[in-house]
Each structure stands twice: as structure tokens, then as C-alpha cells.
């Protein structure tokens, strides 16, 4: 019954995508991207168990680290950009 879990996680990813498209502010989209990253990690782990290949866990470990660094990078760029616009508005 790993398929049931995978389908539930896919539904959650689809709902997260709706928020990524709609979300009025930029931070909503960053939040949605982070959530989809975590859900993808879990889906890859479950898919690995479903097909009997535990090597997929390496991929899941890489995603966790990469999505974390990517989220922090986005926030830094947004902060830099708002600093720049605040500095030029004075």
C-alpha cells in the first residue's frame, strides 16, 4: 500500500502548487516551494521503498540539504533587493 501514501503526497504537492501560483506575496511562493521540497523528499523515500531500492535515500538526503540552502538564498536575495530599493527611495 505504498501507492496510497504516494498518491496522498502527490495530492499535497498539487495543493502546494496552487498556493505557489496564487499566493499574493512573494513569501507565499517561497513557502510553497519549501513545502514542495519537503514533500518531494518524503515521496522519493517512499518510492524507494516501493521499488525495493534503498539507494534512493541518498537522493532524498541531498534534496533536504539543497532545498534548505536554496530557500536561504532566495531570502537573502529578497532582503538585498528590498535594502536596495529602500536605499534608493530616500
Amino acid at each position: 500500500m505504498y501507492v496510497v501514501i504516494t498518491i496522498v503526497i502527490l495530492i499535497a504537492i498539487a495543493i502546494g502548487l496552487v498556493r505557489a501560483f496564487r499566493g499574493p506575496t512573494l513569501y507565499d511562493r517561497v513557502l510553497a516551494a519549501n513545502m514542495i521540497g519537503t514533500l518531494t523528499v518524503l515521496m522519493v523515500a517512499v518510492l524507494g521503498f516501493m521499488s525495493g531500492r534503498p539507494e534512493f535515500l541518498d537522493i532524498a538526503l541531498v534534496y533536504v540539504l539543497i532545498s534548505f540552502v536554496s530557500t536561504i538564498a532566495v531570502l537573502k536575495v529578497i532582503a538585498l533587493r528590498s535594502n536596495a530599493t529602500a536605499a534608493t527611495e530616500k
Partner: protein
Amino acid sequence: MISLIADILSWTCLLGGAIFLLIGAIGVLRFPDFYSRLHAVSICDTLGAGLVLTGLMLQGGLSLVTVKLLLMFYFLLFTGPTAVHALAEAALQSKLKPLVDEHES
């Protein structure tokens, strides 16, 4: 016998975790304000991830796979709340106001 108990426990954990992830996603969709959505994601995602990984660990038994799953849980436990904290700090810095009830002043 013990493997049957472990199987049932693992499926309960997996299903519970998946349901929590779904609840978190629905929360992100329907909450009215960015900060409340942040709250929904951070709590439900970490709990759901923990339950799913525990269920997989019970399926894996005592082996290298369980060690890797434990490592993954440890990483998610640390990076999830940190990313959410950074997100909330960035939103506050750019003066995004939370939705406050007008009657309580």
C-alpha cells in the same frame, strides 16, 4: 508475531503521517494570512515527515537504511524550522503585516 506488530505500527505511522501532510497542505491553501499559513506548514510538515520516516524505519529494520532515515529525520528537524524562521524574519523586515482581529485593540 513481533513482525506483525511492527508491520501494523509502521502502516499506522505512515498513514498518520500522510494525513498530517495533507492537512498541512489544505491549511496552506485555506488560511487567510501569510503568517498563519507559515504556522500550518511548519508544524504539520515536520510532524508528518517525522511520522512517515518512523513508519519507514519500522519497515526497514535494523540496518544501514534505518541509519540513513534517522539522519534524514535529523536534517529535516533542524532545517525545517530554520527555513521557516528565516522566512518569517524576512517577511517582518519587509513590513508585511499580520492579519489582526479589529475588535481586540
